[in-house]
């Protein structure tokens, strides 16, 4: 029973594409989102699909994965016409889709997740599950993705990277010939990403064809053989990796050449007074002896691996989590008994990592979201009624200044905006309060290159106006491009601080990889 684990295709006619898409068109409500999209995928190759949000990547994949039906065009799969009736039909025909937000049931075991649609049966024809067989087959599939866990482990207990491997095992169990990955590395640690790439390389060697969608162009360059670039529903570029560069991908994606993804700022401009002073902040089990100062007009980056304590530090600074010793001062005034409200009164703003959960009311229009945190400023007089004239005017101005692209900010619901525009709404919301300290936790996660560039411009203009900015990011490139100084955290401590001019990717990474002197702690 090893055969199902490795659907090893000898790929005799290796020149024949396994999946061939021609003239694919799709409209939603009269708006054309795909226009004659075509590309082909060969067995044993990895095809990178890149494009800004809304360029049609997801729609293309949803058609291949059977979620949507195409309006026009042809898809040939394994030499025959391919028209999936639904996700289940696509899976049965050998196309596995690993979604960004993984499709696993946390309350069930790994084995149950692997076989949730088709358990091995005790007696063929009867509905009873053969649990022993399910466990055995699950163990084989887990071995194929190097996951050393018992099949009866609850998915709840797994890390994000392990869950991804379970999804891959599921695809192998379904004897997938094509596996589609949608943004697989956004929530993985560096080590988990390496492991994922190892597995992808192995799948490629087994003759499985892979479509790899990602915003992280470095990853695309590393893992893919062929690259297809989409823009506004058109294929605007299609080449072998060797004929492609990151700069070229970016210029194809945005349609204009962003000669500088990171807009310039006058880094030599003298900085102002210290605004945020943190000294010796310590919380057992989280952070130790954190000391730094940020001046007006300065952008301080915080780098580190996932789990280094960056987000935890941000939460402490904003008064969400407690700290046991140390001191935080804003413009020389100690922050006493910090809570988010107190910190906001001190002029802090906090853009969280996960804007969907913590930052926005998804079902409300843009203007309500922008106004939300500042309502008090516009309420006055007896009874505290809101001065809607003044508020609406300011909200309009704000929305224009952060360049939210929407027809009517009073009608468009935030849930219908792209990730980039949502992030601008969050920024606008905070800006209306006129804060002097910005804590930005992964401000550009999951948004496309064009929107990133706009967010960077906003950050620069804030700094130019004298705000002090604390920017947490997992993309070293971004910190190098944007910051005056970069502070590197590992195991809850500050390991190194670099000044602009002394930035060096390798040194930053090395500081981030510090193992925390495990041996002495034990």
């Amino acid at each position, binding site marked *: 029973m090893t055969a199902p684990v490795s659907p090893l295709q000898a790929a005799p006619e290796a020149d024949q594409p396994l999946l061939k898409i021609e003239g694919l068109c799709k409209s939603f409500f009269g708006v054309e989102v795909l226009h004659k999209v075509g590309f082909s995928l060969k067995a044993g190759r990895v095809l990178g699909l890149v494009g800004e949000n809304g360029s049609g990547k997801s729609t293309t994949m949803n058609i291949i994965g059977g979620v949507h039906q195409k309006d026009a065009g042809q898809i040939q799969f394994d030499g025959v016409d391919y028209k999936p009736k639904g996700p289940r039909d696509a899976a049965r025909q050998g196309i596995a889709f690993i979604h960004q937000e993984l499709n696993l049931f946390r309350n069930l075991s790994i084995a149950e997740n692997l076989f949730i649609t088709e358990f091995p049966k005790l007696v063929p024809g009867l509905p*009873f599950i053969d649990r022993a067989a399910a466990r055995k087959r699950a163990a084989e599939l887990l071995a194929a993705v190097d996951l050393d866990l018992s099949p009866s482990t609850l998915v709840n207990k797994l890390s994000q990277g392990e869950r991804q491997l379970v999804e891959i095992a599921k695809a192998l169990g379904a004897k997938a010939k094509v596996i589609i990955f949608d943004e697989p590395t956004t929530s993985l640690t560096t080590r988990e990403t390496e492991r994922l790439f190892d597995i992808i390389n192995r799948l490629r060697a087994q003759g499985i064809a892979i479509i790899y969608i990602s915003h992280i162009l470095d990853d695309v360059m590393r893992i893919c053989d062929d690259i297809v670039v989409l823009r506004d529903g058109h294929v605007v570029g299609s080449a072998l990796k060797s004929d492609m560069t990151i700069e070229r991908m970016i210029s194809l994606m945005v349609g204009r050449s962003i000669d500088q993804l990171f807009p310039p700022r006058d880094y030599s401009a003298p900085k102002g007074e210290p605004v945020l002073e943190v000294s010796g902040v310590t919380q057992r089990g989280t952070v130790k002896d954190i000391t730094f100062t940020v001046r007006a007009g300065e952008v301080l980056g915080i780098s580190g691996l996932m789990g280094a304590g960056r987000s935890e530090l941000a939460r402490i600074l904003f008064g969400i989590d407690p700290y046991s010793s140390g001191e935080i001062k804003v413009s020389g005034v100690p922050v006493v008994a910090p809570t988010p409200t107190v910190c906001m009164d001190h002029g802090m703003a906090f853009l969280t990592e996960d804007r969907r959960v913590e930052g926005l009311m998804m079902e409300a229009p843009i203007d309500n979201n922008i106004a939300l945190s500042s309502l008090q400023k516009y309420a006055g007089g007896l009874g505290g009624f809101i001065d809607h004239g003044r508020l609406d005017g300011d909200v309009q101005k704000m929305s224009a200044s952060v360049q939210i692209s929407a027809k009517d900010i009073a009608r468009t619901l935030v849930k219908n905006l792209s990730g980039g525009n949502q992030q601008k709404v969050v920024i606008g919301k905070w800006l209306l309060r006129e804060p002097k300290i910005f804590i930005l936790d992964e401000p550009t996660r999951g948004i496309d290159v064009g929107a990133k560039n706009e967010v960077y411009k906003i950050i620069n203009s804030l700094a130019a106006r004298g705000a002090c900015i604390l920017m947490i990011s997992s993309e070293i490139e971004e910190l190098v491009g944007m910051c005056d100084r970069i502070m590197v955290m590992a195991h809850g401590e500050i390991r190194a601080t670099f000044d602009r001019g002394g930035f060096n990717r390798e040194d930053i990474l090395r500081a981030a990889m510090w193992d925390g002197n495990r041996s002495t702690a034990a």
Partner: protein
Amino acid sequence: MSGFRGKFSLLVLQNAPLLLFAVLVIVFGLMSDRFLTPINFVNIVNQASHIAIIAIGMTFVLLIAGIDLSVGANMYLSAAILGVFLVGMPPLVAFPVVALLGLAFGAVNAFMITQLRVAAFITTLATLFIGRGIALYFSGNKMVPFSKSVLAFGRATYLGVPSAIWVFAIVLIIALVVLKLTTFGRQVYAIGADPDAAAKAGINVKRVVFTVYCICGVCAAVGGLVSGSQVAVASSTFGFQKEFPVIAAAVLGGTSLFGGRGGVLGTVFGAVLIQTVENGLVMTNANPYIYPLVISVIIFIAVFTDSSRTTVLERLERRKIRVEPD
């Protein structure tokens, strides 16, 4: 040290219904010498049977994060149809017939929920009133007597065990097998955890949800017949407000109202716990008016411990970044 305290409080919270049960048994045992007798315990389970049967069906519904408020109406309507139109059936025929009637009732709920996409709460609230209304109309607002053979069944014992407990045991075993050992059962849990993911994974969500409401309907009608065989007549209050103890039994037994967590064994325990309270109150000659009060307090405690357990779990599972020497 804080870790130990956390784990201890979690242990207490996880077993809160059991502790509650132990405390109640001790208190009632001290207050009445008739309470702690084997006969009384069989009596409690016997009286809890119909609630347990209906609550088993409700557990399926709660597991997919649904709700069925119409179980009491289903009980009454099925009993009324049996008593008015299908008089004199022997139990062996009456049970399958009633089960089919309950299935039909459940299928109406299921149709409205899955096909017309009306929220389950509203759907079953409506069928609660519609069902009772139709039943009152059929019965001419009079008591509906159950047939002699059904009553004889209600009084009968097999191998010394009352018939109600037999029916209850059969329903429980079937439910356990279905939930644990069939693809359908595992898919119920999957849908409860995340219906969107379930659809994307290729599960036929509508069909599973439809089936679940049908199962609940069958259990409600069968539970109604068991109850009818014990009380002899279906008066106009037959099954009235049964949804309350039924949902309470499931929640007391650890089934989450948000779906995906729980099971029928816990539900059975919850049903027995509720019946124990009622029985104990009777044994200690408590004022009947405080029954609902006491039961509500117990349910509140159960729901409260459930949410505190979630909080404690979150705190315990918070990631540690630094390994600090103790």
